[in-house]
């Protein structure tokens, strides 16, 4: 088949506008995920079963259902169930943020468990309160150990953010879709869209690889 490529048909301005929205969503979701993910991790490690169970259910639910189902659910059901009407971007941030929280909580949990027992004992010996122990001993160590996984999860959320196009938030994917239908140039448009996503994700994955290698060197 003869097909003439015409990349001039792809105007970058709307795509970059969309990329900006995608990045906004990603950053906001990451702030929620990194901060509240740690709290969630502490809650699912609580010694009290009644505290632990509902939060474990929350985490498992977000980890075991498709992100697109979560996003569509939050967009349609939250306004109906709770009678709150938020603007689409806030809803998108909420959906992605909750999803990321669940995944980050698991990452934190693994590294909290890896904090050596002696450090906690030292904290007790120094007379630190439980809150001080968590803030000054557990959090810094666990956070540093989690950084590679947190970064990976963060970039996964950047990719998952493309799903909000389905509920008509004007992110990169949404702009790409409308550009493709406007110009009748799906190949060129989606190729450029894919390349933009790749250009953002790839450097971050390289950084994660670098961090992990450095970590292994330090350990060995």
């Amino acid at each position, binding site marked *: *088949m003869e*097909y003439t490529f015409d990349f001039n048909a792809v105007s970058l301005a709307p795509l970059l506008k969309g990329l900006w929205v995608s990045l906004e969503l990603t950053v906001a979701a990451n702030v929620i995920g990194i901060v509240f993910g740690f709290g969630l991790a502490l809650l699912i490690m609580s010694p009290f079963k009644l505290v632990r169970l509902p939060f474990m259910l929350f985490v*498992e*639910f977000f*980890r*075991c*259902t*498709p*992100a*697109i*189902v*979560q996003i*569509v*659910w939050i967009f*349609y*059901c939250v306004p*109906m*169930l709770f009678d709150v009407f938020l603007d689409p971007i806030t809803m998108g941030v909420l959906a992605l943020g909750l999803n990321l929280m669940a995944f980050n909580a698991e990452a934190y949990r693994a590294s909290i468990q890896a904090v050596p027992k002696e450090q906690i004992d030292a904290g007790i010996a120094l007379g630190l309160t439980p809150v001080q122990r968590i803030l000054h001993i557990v959090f810094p160590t666990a956070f540093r150990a989690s950084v590679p996984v947190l970064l990976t999860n963060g970039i996964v959320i950047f*990719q*998952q*953010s*493309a*799903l909000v*196009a*389905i509920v008509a938030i004007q992110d990169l*994917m949404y702009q*790409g*879709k409308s550009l*493709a239908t406007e110009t009748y140039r*799906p*190949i060129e448009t*989606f*190729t450029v*869209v*894919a390349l933009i*996503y*790749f250009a953002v*994700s*790839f450097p971050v*994955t390289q950084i994660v690889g670098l961090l992990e290698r450095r970590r292994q060197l330090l350990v060995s």
Partner: protein
Amino acid sequence: MELDFSILSKFQYALRLGLWTTLKLTVICIVLGCALGFAVGLARTSRNIAVRAVSSAYVEFFRGTPVLVQLFWIFFCLPLMLGVELSNFTSGVVALTLYMGAITSETFRASLKSIGPEQFDACVALGLPRNVQVINVVLPQAVLRAIPTLLSNCVSLFKESALVSAVGMADLMFVGQNISNNTARPVEVLTVVALIYFVIAFPLTRAVSVIEARILRKLAI
């Protein structure tokens, strides 16, 4: 608002049909994706630079772009470029297999790498020929170690398969959205759809941790 879950009983058949499509798609892509992933995993450790570069580019590209974009690309662009008509299902299988292949190749690569050099030294000491080394020493350990991650890849794929609804394939998510649009009861329908996904994915993730613990114990001996 009042919830009425009984309306779903009318749509049982449609939901079951959607679930069947989802499962069929998932299983086909798991089988093809694992095979592809193993081949690519080997290719990435190849001594030939060209083979290594091509396979690495493939993996990085598919891991660095959203699955939704990959799906759209394959649905709209592959037929145009190849000049053949592809059915919805075929495009879905192609897209998800390529995705599964990319993430699985990383799993196999990591498990191949985890086999220590002393194993090879032992093989040499025992005078085992090369093919016996690969088949009886390297392969069983690599596959055993890959199983937990492979299983969680399968769960990811199962979840990502919901994306095909965005390109009009009648999977569970698509059927659910249709029903919720027609009945104007999104809360009930979408909740049930989410629960169906959960009921299938959750036991699998449990199995991952059980198997992981068992394999760790076995290898530690």
